[in-house]
């Protein structure tokens, strides 16, 4: 056993917290991510992660808990993106890009002012990659409650979301408030992404949002199964990633441990490649493709 689990793995407090919170984040990201992939909002999902980190460096500057900075900026950006029109596919990516560009500019300013006041050059790096092993216990309950809220929103809206992602017109004809559903989903996405960004950084946040969901949509035969499969893949990637990162403490070349983000990203992308390169596309993939085609036809119209 010691070859797999380094001595001390099961008794280490930070590892327990990392695994527990990581599991919650992985499940939320995966379930929310299934709709992100179906709706073609990967760029928005990633941008919200980057934008919420801007809130993190802003909160650092004014001296409040970073967690609230992440949430506030994520939610604010989602509202703004909805306002300036993220409904049309192509215009949506441009609007997202402009909001992201402005937020990154703000991040540069905040980080500059941060370094003026406290001379921490490493802060930009922490913001990008997060740090799983430095969770503060005080934010854990708030974090879990917000994650559950985002998860519940998506699960409750699942049917109408799927319908309105499939065909806006049919959904509208059946009396679904398409725009309101889309806005609620974007808000849930923002909250879930902000949470994962604060803990595991914007890189892993995007990896866990898109990777497991895209893999599951290629494998599973129905959207519900895709959500379950995605959650499973996400949790497995986090657990194996944390174990490997813990083990790697004695690996060459530096003897300081390899980053968790490297392992989790490699596992997630590797899993996707296996599903991607499978010779025969599954029925779900064909169905998903059909959904995408319908959606594209709708957005083009």
């Amino acid at each position: 056993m010691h070859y797999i689990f380094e001595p001390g793995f099961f008794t280490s407090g930070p590892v327990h917290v990392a695994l527990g919170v990581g599991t919650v984040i992985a499940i939320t990201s995966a379930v929310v991510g299934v709709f992100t992939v179906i709706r073609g909002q990967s760029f928005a999902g990633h941008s919200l992660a980057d934008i919420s980190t801007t809130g993190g460096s802003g909160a650092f500057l004014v001296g409040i808990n970073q967690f609230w900075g992440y949430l506030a900026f994520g939610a604010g950006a989602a509202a703004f993106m909805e306002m300036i029109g993220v409904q049309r596919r192509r215009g949506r990516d441009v609007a997202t890009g402009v909001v992201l560009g402005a937020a990154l500019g703000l991040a540069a300013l905040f980080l500059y002012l941060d370094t003026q006041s406290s001379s921490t050059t490493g802060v930009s790096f922490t913001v990008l990659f997060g740090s799983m092993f430095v969770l503060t216990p005080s934010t854990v309950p708030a974090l879990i409650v917000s994650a559950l809220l985002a998860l519940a929103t998506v699960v409750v809206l699942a049917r109408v979301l799927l319908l309105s992602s499939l065909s806006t017109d049919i959904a509208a004809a059946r009396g679904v408030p398409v725009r309101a559903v889309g806005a609620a989903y974007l808000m849930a996405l923002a909250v879930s992404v902000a949470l994962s960004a604060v803990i595991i950084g914007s890189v892993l946040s995007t990896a866990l949002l898109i990777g497991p969901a895209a893999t599951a949509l290629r494998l599973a035969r129905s959207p519900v199964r895709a959500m379950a499969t995605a959650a499973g893949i996400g949790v497995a990637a986090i657990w194996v990633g944390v174990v490997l990162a813990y083990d790697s403490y004695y690996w060459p070349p530096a003897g300081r441990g390899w980053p968790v983000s490297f392992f989790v990203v490699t596992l997630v992308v590797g899993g996707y490649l296996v599903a991607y390169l499978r010779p025969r596309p599954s029925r779900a993939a064909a169905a998903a493709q059909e959904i995408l085609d319908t959606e594209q036809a709708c957005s083009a119209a």
Partner: protein
Amino acid sequence: MMNTWIAATAVAVIAGVMGFFAVLRGSTFAAHAIPNGAFAGAAGASLLGLNALVGLAVFSVAGALGIAGLSRRARSDVATALTFVMMLGVGALFVSWSTEYAQEAYSLLFGEVFGVAEGEVLPILVLGAVSIAAILVMFRPLMLSSALPEVAEARGISTRRMELAFLLVMALATSMTVPVVGALLMFSLMIGPAAAARSLTARPVLAMALSVAIALVTVWAGIVVSYQTNWPLGFFVGAAGAVFFLAGRGYAAARRRLAVRAATA
């Protein structure tokens, strides 16, 4: 300061041109992913003791190939997201192996526009000229496949091959611009001016010229203000991009309203 002006001007021209096509094609995500992901290459190069430009070039080309390759049988936003996180994951590994990288990472993300050395100007100009020349050579097919992909396919222009060519030029442009203005700023400089230009005019060549002009004004004004205030250039460029975009949108909306009023009167 002379080096700063020359390098920044070259960067603005290339960002204006590349950004115009990125916005037209809707490949905004790739415009974000390639410059940002390429930073991993610089980390790898510094680990091996190579010139950062080599690492940036290798990783941005690898990123372009990854995005184009994975887009063959999947949606391009998923392909872009996964290629991007993989590049950054490898970057995190490289950074964890090296010891004195944090400061350099900061300058690659946010740029070092006031620290352009004499020897850096020539490679930037050469790579910039090559990127612009590449865009000019494939100008017509690229324009057609960006604006009307179906018509282009009917005329025998492969959308997929055009996408790959465009991403490769983006990769080339990126490896030259990232050391000067930083990955984050390069992205804002591509998207803001081009998006504003597009809402100001529907004529493609005019929109491209406007995009370059707005990018130049943004960078020049940004450098002056940034030099005066000592605040980072990235902040001014990002803010200017958003302001130009909103102004362009406002102008387009006002023009539409006037047209409607003229039609109903």
